[in-house]
């Protein structure tokens, strides 16, 4: 059960208002897609959910409690790039989350615990179709393979919330269909709440159970930074939940 609530939230950088008066309630196991013009604050919104940015005013609640001020294993993230660990193989990249969980001191598992973790990682690896590349390093993978791994990596600790910031923006169009399938499969398997920013409206309709549109409602042509964006549309969709 994960509820995300935002109440009268504002975000400013110095005098520059990025987001103003954002209100939102998202229930359990939703797939929220977010669209909006470039620079309107979508990434900023995700960064606040992640805990690496604090709202200037207002409240940001998860299950009624204030958001922790730093990232944690309950909220996973997939960036457009760079979030794989180049020194670890594909399998090790997946394993890492499990090792960090159960080995606070050494960060490594041994014996039976390791075998259990390996089983879990291998299952997930099969789900994303990367078994053959298990022992390669990220730099040896194509962009699509890297992003598949990145998604798998961020769900292995079964976060309550998964954040995706234009995860397919850097991929060849042909590959995105596979990725959509994968993300829906994982979303259904792990029953988490997903927030995904995208530039592709079609994608947002196809995947989401709820579409958020960020836009400015007030514009001062003399001072474009005086007013921020807010959620102008909050549209429930049918999404792919039925597919589960």
């Amino acid at each position, binding site marked *: 059960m994960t509820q995300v609530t935002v109440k009268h939230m504002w975000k400013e950088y110095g005098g520059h208002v990025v987001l103003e008066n954002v209100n939102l309630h998202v229930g359990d196991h939703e797939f929220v897609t977010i669209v909006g013009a470039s620079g309107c604050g979508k990434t900023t919104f995700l960064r606040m959910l992640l805990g690496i940015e604090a709202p200037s005013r207002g409240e940001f609640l998860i299950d009624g409690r204030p958001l922790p001020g730093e990232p944690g294993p309950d909220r996973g993230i997939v960036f457009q790039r760079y979030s794989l660990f180049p020194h670890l193989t594909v399998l090790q990249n997946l394993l890492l989350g499990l090792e960090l969980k159960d080995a606070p001191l050494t960060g490594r598992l041994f014996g039976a615990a390791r075998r259990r973790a390996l089983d879990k990682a291998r299952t997930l690896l099969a789900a994303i179709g990367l078994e053959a590349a298990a022992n390669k390093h990220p730099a040896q993978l194509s962009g699509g393979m890297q992003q598949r791994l990145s998604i798998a*990596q961020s769900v292995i600790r079964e976060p309550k919330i998964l954040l995706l910031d234009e995860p397919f923006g850097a991929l060849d169009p042909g590959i995105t269909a596979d990725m959509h399938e994968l993300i829906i499969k994982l979303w259904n398997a792990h029953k988490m709440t997903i927030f995904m920013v995208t530039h592709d409206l079609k994608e947002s309709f196809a995947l989401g159970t709820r579409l958020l549109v960020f836009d400015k409602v007030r514009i001062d042509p003399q001072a474009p930074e005086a007013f921020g964006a807010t959620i102008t549309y909050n549209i429930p969709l049918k999404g792919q939940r039925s597919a589960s």
Partner: protein
Amino acid sequence: MRRLINRRPGRGGAFGLGLLPFILVISAYLYYSHQRLEANPGDKLLPAPASIGAAIHRYALEEDERTGDYLLWTDTRASLERLGMGLAISAAIGLGLGLAIGVVPYLRASAAPFVAAVSLVPPLAVLPILFIAVGLGELAKVTLIVVGVAPVIVRDLAMRTAELPTEQIIKAQTLGASTWQLVLRVVLPQSWPRLIDALRLSLGSAWLFLIAAEAIASTEGLGFRIFLVRRYLAMDVILPYVAWITLLALAMDRLLRLVRAKAFAWAEPGV
């Protein structure tokens, strides 16, 4: 005619071309040496190849009467031990402090300006204090190398640690990493190849400090020998020693490069 930039020598050609400047320098040496020896057969500045050969024979292949050692080898061993120890300690400090400064903002605020200042203090100017602090034994020589080399490595590693993509650091935290785990599993493993790069860059100054240290207090070592015979302008000994030092330094450089390529293939630019 293709552009200069598009013309490449073959393998054999490249080897020959690489040899060329060495041959030129050696030829120039032989020419000037011959000229000076014609003018003054006792000239010691640019000794003839035969004298150099004799000196090499004396130092590398004959037992020293006084000590029963083969001087070149005892000197080499002593110097390499000091150098190895100095570099190892510098690497350990560089890794530990550099990582800590790069990762922990509070430590960065506190230590970074100090390290920047210390790395610019000329160590040779504060020798007396250094020697009082650590004595004049082996420790002193190793310390001089460490004082000269470690701050540079610390700065380098701190900078490169801070350059790690924020995305990685955030990702690790969303996987539940504590600061300690983050260092252990994400930052440290990625620092090894960088440490090797930093060590390679420091090799030149490490040798410099070793030679300086040995010239001040020691009874053996490559730098000591050069210092000892320099008073007699015994270039027939100095030149092969310098060539030998250069060769050792080159070998260490290549070795480090090899280790990096083999052990940290994921960090090679070509992959």
